């Protein structure tokens, strides 16, 4: 199906290495962010609550679940399994995070996003919405790149049937 390695255009080869980098960065960030939050469930719940977007009944479950969703996606991303599907899910999660931060900033809340653990209320003027948004947008770009170019080196996708996962 695919062209042999010798005739593969250089550009496509380069794209695969870019995708590899994107996968490792995204996977690493998600794994670390999820892990730091999973350590302290109370903080994670407090961080979700601080956004004041969810009813109290959902705050706890989301605060507990979110870090593990990040860990699961991070592991799949690092392993390079079903890259396009996982990248799409990651992009959706990032869009939710971005909307959350934008809405917190728009409502004038003084909170830390708790993206890497901690979170909750901070003093007015100690917010870092700009940096949080730039970082999340950067990660979103990487995820969207992977939806477009899911084929990469050092990925388990390559070992599976060439038709699935990373196929066009």
């Amino acid at each position: 199906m695919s062209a042999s390695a010798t005739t593969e255009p250089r550009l496509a080869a380069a794209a695969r290495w870019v995708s590899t980098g994107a996968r490792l960065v995204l996977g690493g960030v998600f794994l670390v962010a999820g892990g730091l939050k999973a350590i302290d469930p109370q903080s994670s719940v407090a961080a979700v609550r601080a956004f004041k977007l969810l009813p109290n009944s959902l705050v706890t479950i989301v605060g507990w679940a979110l870090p593990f969703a990040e860990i699961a996606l991070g592991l799949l991303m690092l392993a390079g399994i079903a890259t396009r599907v996982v990248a799409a899910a990651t992009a959706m999660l990032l869009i939710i995070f971005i909307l959350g931060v934008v809405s917190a900033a728009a409502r004038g809340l003084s909170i830390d996003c708790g993206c890497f653990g901690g979170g909750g209320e901070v003093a007015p003027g100690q917010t870092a919405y700009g940096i949080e948004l730039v970082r999340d947008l950067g990660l979103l770009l990487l995820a969207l790149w992977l939806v477009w170019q899911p084929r990469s080196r050092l990925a388990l996708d390559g070992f599976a049937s060439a038709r699935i996962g990373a196929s066009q």
Partner: protein
Amino acid sequence: MNGPKNMNAHERARLAAEQAAARKRDQRILIAVVAAFVLLVVAAGIGLQAWRTNRSPSVAPSSSVSASPVTITNGQPIVLGSAEAPTTITLYEDFHCPHCADFEEEFGPVITQAQESGSARVELYPMAFIDEGSAAAANAMACAAEAGFGQAFYLGLFANHTLQWSDAQLIDLAAKVSGASPSEAFKTCVTGTAHADWVSSINAAADKNGVAQTPTMLINGKSVDIATLTPDALKAMITNASQR
């Protein structure tokens, strides 16, 4: 085309359609497997966190700070340590505030040492704004101070800050830090949230005193910048304040 010579256009189209269908099916299976994996990890995580927040508290670091019973007065903080201590450390904390737990881990030993040596006493404003557990813990803190084991209970609450603080967990913690079965009075104080009004009055007092975040620390009434503080610097601050 490199297909067999006898394959006509119709057969080629059929083969392509079959391959496309197989590809689609594989893709669907893959999505299902990935979704199942993510759901499994999330479900296991929720189970783990439910267990971690509902389990019984572990023992807290011990402290020899005086254990005389304290009277709870609306709007007034709980005083922990010697009334004659030259330095007053005022703390505004929520027992479920993550930064308070970090603060306690880093600076708690220095403060406890100052209380034990008699150089400082703590005026504690246990605020309750994060969740139900914050309020339950603040109420139980008042019950424990009244019963005479406030300091040990305080350390126990922060040593176990990942717990959700149900009544049973608070009573269990009291038994562990006081080394005895809690009195009926303490139990009804916890289950009946006897100090609910006091907890609200503390929130109101913090508001009135202009406290916008937790943890907030004042030494002899002067606000301390916690962001740049080190344990050694705090130690020096307490020593200096005590020598005045």
